[in-house]
């Protein structure tokens, strides 16, 4: 009986068998795909999954319309790249430093954001990310490399490996971070913090009246989300050996927001599934770059208009209806046992 109140609260339930199948498939994917191009596409998708998962915590679970996440992601990437470039520290430390730099910036962005409501937050954060992008482009000091970006750092330090094994290893590193992020998000969402964030999203005044501090909780949400976004930025930097202002910008933002909206905001699997779908579509359209973004915009528009909650909640709803239809049939056929268990 325990599963009913859990579902009513909107907590994610672990479905072990599909998760295990997906995990095994993801792990052996680079063995199946025998082209380095597709392994590269999948690696990029995994990095985006980490980023979208982190973004989803603020955008989906906390309901704070933060559109500045790409700047935080890029700052994480730049920080990790700078550490890798100027010091001899190993890459995991550089990644974590990038994560903490992103956390810091995210908290700075959060301070004015949590004071504002609704549309003003999106204005502020959207402007923030554009200004970070313009500042990097205008940077003449050479720290960030301006328009052309920063390159020439070691990254994972795998240059001596033969290409195919290297691509696979990089893929598995990214996959490991996707799993870490997923597990972390699962525990955050299940924790009192997650419940508090959702309460603040659904009914701010009631939640605040019940003792959930909006400022404290939302700052935490920004901080955690910033950390994982920074990690994603570092992964990007080390995978491709370059960070540039093209990590940010309107086109990128459309792409990532579409992924989350397609998958379903405020769900754990939504960002993963949305990212997978959109990355696949984008990779298939590689040869027609002109219509790629047009199609992306149309998909975003259509999804918001036709199924605003995304694919995952829609399928989950259908699945739930199927389940209840099946169980209703069961209880109708075996009425005596159903009543006997009740009493």
């Amino acid at each position, binding site marked *: 009986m325990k599963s009913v109140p859990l579902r009513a609260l909107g907590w994610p339930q672990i479905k072990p068998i599909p998760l295990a199948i997906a995990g095994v498939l993801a792990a052996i994917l680079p063995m199946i795909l025998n082209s380095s191009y597709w392994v590269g596409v999948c690696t990029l998708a995994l990095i985006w999954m980490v980023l979208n998962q982190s973004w989803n915590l603020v955008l989906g679970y906390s309901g704070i319309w933060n559109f500045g996440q790409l700047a935080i992601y890029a700052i994480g990437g730049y920080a990790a790249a700078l550490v890798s470039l100027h010091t001899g520290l190993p890459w995991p430390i550089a990644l974590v430093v990038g994560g903490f730099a992103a956390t810091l910036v995210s908290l700075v962005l959060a301070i*004015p954001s949590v004071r504002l409501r*609704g549309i003003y937050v999106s204005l502020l954060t*959207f402007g923030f990310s554009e*200004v970070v992008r313009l500042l990097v482009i205008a940077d003449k000091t050479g720290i960030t490399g301006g328009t052309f970006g920063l390159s020439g750092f070691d990254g994972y330090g795998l240059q001596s490996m033969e290409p195919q094994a290297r691509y696979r290893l990089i893929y598995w590193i990214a996959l490991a971070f996707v799993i870490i992020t997923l597990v972390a998000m699962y525990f955050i969402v299940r924790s009192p913090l997650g419940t508090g964030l959702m309460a603040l999203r659904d009914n701010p005044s009631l939640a605040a009246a019940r003792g959930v501090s909006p400022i404290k909780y939302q700052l935490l949400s920004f901080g955690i989300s910033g950390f994982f976004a920074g990690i994603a930025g570092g992964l990007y930097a080390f995978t491709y050996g370059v960070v540039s202002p093209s990590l940010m910008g309107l086109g990128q933002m459309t792409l990532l*927001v579409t992924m989350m909206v397609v998958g379903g905001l405020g769900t754990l699997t939504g960002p993963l599934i949305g990212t997978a779908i959109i990355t696949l579509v984008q990779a298939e359209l590689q040869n027609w770059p002109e*219509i790629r973004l047009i199609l992306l915009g149309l998909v975003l*528009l259509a999804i*918001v208009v036709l199924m605003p909650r995304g694919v995952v909640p829609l399928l989950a709803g259908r699945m739930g209806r199927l389940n209840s239809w099946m169980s209703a049939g069961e209880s109708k056929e075996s009425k005596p046992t159903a009543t006997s268990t009740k009493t």
Partner: protein
Amino acid sequence: MNAILQTLVSTIVQGSILALISIGMTLVYGTLRVLNMAQGVMVMVGGFAAYTVVDRTGVSPWISIAVAAAVTFLLGVLTYYMAVKPLLGRPGVDFEMTAFITTFAVATIVQNIILMIYGPRQKPFDPLWPGGINITSEVSITYHSMIMAVLAVGALVALGLFLSRSRYGLAITAVAQNLDAARLMGIPARRVYVVTMGIAAALAGIAGVLLAPLYFVYPNAGDLPLLQALIVVIFAGLGSVKGTIYASYIIGFLSSAVAIFWSSAFALPVLYIVILVVLVVRPNGIAGKPQEARL
């Protein structure tokens, strides 16, 4: 002295254009509660419409202003039907936010269609009136920037008269002030929405033609105006027409002062820091009402 004079001239020109672009955003937000992220694209489309007309038919650029206004008006109406109307009155969905995303999607679509048709290259556009005058030996004003200021102010005055005198304008004002009361008086709110989106887009389109000789015509031409307009509307508080006009000139002054006395690369970041401070001190802008009161 020269730098100060230059700043003043630049303030008037920039402020007027900014007012033209951001008044559309604030008007749409005031009536529909939609933050129209496609406004920047309208500026760009206005420039392209004028460029195409002048390039293909060779008419005077003055006529192209009217064409650009008409094209962007239609595009604004189309945006309403594509991105806003399907969301109206839908339960369980945060309307403001979904509309923010859909107008953003429209902006992406339009921008990339233009990119596909015209390519990324910058297109030159002749000034409406070439030449200029020198005020002092170092400070000069081109006739074009004078025309920009005059036309922008003229359009704003016309808009003010339209909103306060004409039948349709009064309907827009009424819907913006109190939707329920306006509907009870028999004003068809949804048609008012259509007209408002069209007018807002047309204003941006006119601004696009005026800006075209300065910044050229290219598919990303709308990004910077959108960003500046966003700063203006945050500063002013969404939905306040008067506040938007004041804010436009303040922001115009700040950005030209920073550009002239320091570096144009820092104009936007400095503005942004100002905005941060304003938002922390007055979370609803200089003239905005608290958001709860407006819902």
